[in-house]
């Protein structure tokens, strides 16, 4: 029976977890990116996503390599450094029924790709946009990225002089409709956030601190496992509830907050400390600002707006995939040419 080993257990679409895997990872052992890849696999498996319905995009970097290591049955495009968003934007128009995952690094997104990162949010492209944020350029051997904290010293690189980019704050400031932060050392939260992001109809920015064990894992570095473990401050305990699933657990009144997603699923937030309302943009910005001041790694669903139309809502496209339209539907009729000629002067 397929259900015997956990590996072999099938989900509702009759796939085992290994149907969601990719090629063996060539990243370093212990790299945060590997652990995120596992959670992508787990999330897709648990959500019963059909891999052929997913399409993957990435820039260049260790992080951007990782789409090779999950969902081997999905199309993918490992593009150019910093330019995943435009590649994804164009491609997603091909068949808007596909689910898109964009994978990027902090260098990829916050340095060379900053402009595209900002603009893909303006357009609200439905895309699970994951930034595997390690404060360095892994693949080019450890230079500071734009998210490195000011004053960080690395062996070969000296001391970082410039102020860090806060990817989550940038996303909120730029009207992203789903912004979360998490930590590769908190796999459960990562997984639940990925599920929630898949249900979001618009851009979902996931800023995931993902330690680089080769170049930036010193205890005092803000992107290390140790620092993350010690300083993580979750806004809430977060779980994703698929559409129409009965929940049995009982909670105290006021302790829970549900965000209803477009597809009927819920993001269930269980209060941890003080109240936090992820639909209040100003509050989100304040929370991030305060966390930075207090040297906390704030994680959870930071901001969400489920009402803004997605990019594809703005274009009046047929239900059928554009890339399947037959020639007769994309070439105007022979008669029309005379009308056009008549317009020419």
């Amino acid at each position, binding site marked *: 029976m397929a259900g015997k080993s956990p590996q072999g257990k099938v989900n509702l679409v009759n796939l085992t977890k290994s149907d969601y895997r990719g090629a063996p990872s060539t990243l370093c052992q212990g790299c945060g990116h590997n652990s995120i890849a596992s959670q992508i696999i787990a999330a897709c498996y648990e959500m019963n996503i*059909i*891999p*052929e*319905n997913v*399409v*993957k*995009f990435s820039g260049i970097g260790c992080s951007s390599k990782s*789409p*090779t290591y999950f969902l*081997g*049955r*999905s*199309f*993918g*495009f*490992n*593009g*150019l450094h910093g*330019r995943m*968003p*435009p*590649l*994804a*934007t*164009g*491609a*997603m*128009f*091909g*068949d808007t*029924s*596909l689910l898109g995952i964009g994978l990027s690094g902090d260098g990829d997104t916050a340095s060379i790709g900053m*402009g*595209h990162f*900002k*603009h893909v949010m303006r*357009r609200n492209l439905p895309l699970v946009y994951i930034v595997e944020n390690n404060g360095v350029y892994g693949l080019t051997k450890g230079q500071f990225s734009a998210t490195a904290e000011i004053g960080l010293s690395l062996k070969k690189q000296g001391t970082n002089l410039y102020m860090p980019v806060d990817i989550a704050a940038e996303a909120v400031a730029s009207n992203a409709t789903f912004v979360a932060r998490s930590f590769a050392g908190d796999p459960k939260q990562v997984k639940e956030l990925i599920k929630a992001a898949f249900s979001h109809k618009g851009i979902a920015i996931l800023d995931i601190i993902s330690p680089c064990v080769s170049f930036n894992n010193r205890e005092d570095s803000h992107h290390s496992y140790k620092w993350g473990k010690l300083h993580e401050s979750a806004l809430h305990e977060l779980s994703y509830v698929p559409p129409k699933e009965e929940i049995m657990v009982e909670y105290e009144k006021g302790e829970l907050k549900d965000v209803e997603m477009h597809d009927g699923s819920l993001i269930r937030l269980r209060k941890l400390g003080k109240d936090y309302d992820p639909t209040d943009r100003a509050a989100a910005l304040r929370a991030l600002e305060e966390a930075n001041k207090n040297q906390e790694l704030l994680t959870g669903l930071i901001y969400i707006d489920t009402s803004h139309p997605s990019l594809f809502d703005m*274009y*009046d*496209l*047929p*239900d*059928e*995939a*554009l*890339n*399947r*339209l037959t*020639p007769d*539907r*994309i*070439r*105007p009729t*022979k008669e*029309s*040419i005379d009308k*056009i*000629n008549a317009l*020419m*002067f």
Partner: protein
Amino acid sequence: MNKLEVKESDESMKAMREIVNDFSITVGTVNGSGSQTSNLTILRSIFKMGIPVSGKNIFPSNIQGLPTWYTIRVSKDGYLARREEHEIVIAMNPVTFNQDLNDLVPGGALFYADHIKEEITRDDIVVYPMPVKQLVSEMNVPGNLKDYVANMVYVGILAEMIGIDYGKIEKALDFHFKGKKAPIDMNFGTVKLAGKWASENLNKEDLFVLEPMDKTDGFIMSDGNTSGALGSIYGGVEFVSWYPITPASSLAESLNYFLPMLRKDPKTGKNTFAVVQTEDELAAVGMAIGAGWAGLRSMTSTSGPGISLMSEFTSLAYYSEVPLVIWDVQRMGPSTGLPTRTSQGDINQAYFLGHGDTKHILLFPSSIRECFEFGWKSLDLAEQLQTPVFIISDLDLGLNQWMSEPFTYPDTPIKRGKVLWEEDLEKLKQPWGRYLDIDGDGIPYRTVPGNRHPKSAYFARGTGHDEFANYSEDPAVWSENMERLNKKFDTARQLVPKPIVENDDNADIAIIAFGSTHHAIKEAVDILKKDGVTIDYMRLRSLPFTKEVSEFVMKHNRIYVIEMNRDGQMNQLLVIEYPEIASKFISVTHNDGMQLTAKWIVNAIMDKEAK
């Protein structure tokens, strides 16, 4: 008023010396003053009189208040190129009055707004002052429209003096204002008023007259950007990403205008297209590549600076074999250069675009019809060859109004190249590899996202990959793949538009040219022939060169390669392609931002032949 030095007293004598349907009219004005409507009205009415005509706008890189010229060439023989001579000048701009005056040929006619108080220093021309302000004040127009209407004054006076048909003017205005009565009436009223004033107050002293012909019957008039946009629409373009830049913007703006008109899905009434204005050219080409990869017919349009920015992405498309079309409406570079002046200076950049070894397919339209034709053909080619295809247009072709035979409906069905869908994969006997050259033509088969067949997916990348799209750093795999791309480029030689031998007199010497200079060159060839110099002429329409090019170059002894840039870029590519006969090629270049003229070409060739 000055008089012509040589003047016939006898009316019939004068009629004999009349110059009919063969002269240029230049309007000197400031931009942003609405003169464009007046100029187009003149152009359109002459066209509607059946007389071949073309219009060229020489404008500054700002929005309002700087000198602008509009030159209308009337040519009974149908020549459309710029001429260096100005027979009629309409001077509306005090700042350039003297320059405009000096540009006039002896015997030319100067119309000028009489509030310009410059001295007229020539007496070999005919001068017509125009009481623009007075006539405008006689019209009952709202203050904010006065400037616009002022420009209609010269339309009326010119019409009266050279014989533009008022009925055609009305038609032209009707077309321009899309039948809206108020502006038509106001403008046509001004034209008539000014015409009346001219008929009552001016004596025809110059020799330039219009006479109706039937040479524009069935012709249209358009600019290359509009035509390119329409061609793409008939080519089934589905995705367009662009960033504004002069002189390319109007291509995308025309798409925005015509797509909703022509491309609602016949089945569902929905849009079968999407147009995205992007944050920059990097994103523009990136989205187009994404879309092309995902199986959409996709394109972007830009000019030189944008092409520069597209370099890295284009090499990705070359290497990952993604179809897309890139329009380069060339302007003067390097750098920002002269954004409102024409050039053919992006040839080597586009051909070699990208680091490493890259060679791209380039198409060179030289007319309105070819902009249309290459508009749709390029989309076929890109998908057939799975590679970027550039269309190298230029400002002169892209923005100016050219008379042309009408657009003709594509004569071949849409060719989508080697795309495999679910059922194709199902049928396939051998294993499918994204970069496997099954047919021996260097072109592999591809699948696109959305294909749900479990074997369809592959991971595209710009790094080394084997025939099955797996990552590879193997030296042999790399070089074999690069050689296959080379083979594909050779396959392209059979598919790209062939050159056209525009003049074949079995001459010893020949011209090779391409793009918008064609019109001046054709005229020059005719002039040279009259002067006893026979010269053959082949017009290139694409890169890579095809066997027809080889045949032509082998057969001639001296080949003038004429182009609008400094370094003779096409000449360089010819030399690279034909090293054995490299010394046959003589580079002839013109690089000042102004369109080539037949006169310049004739002189350049006569000069070199004399040596």
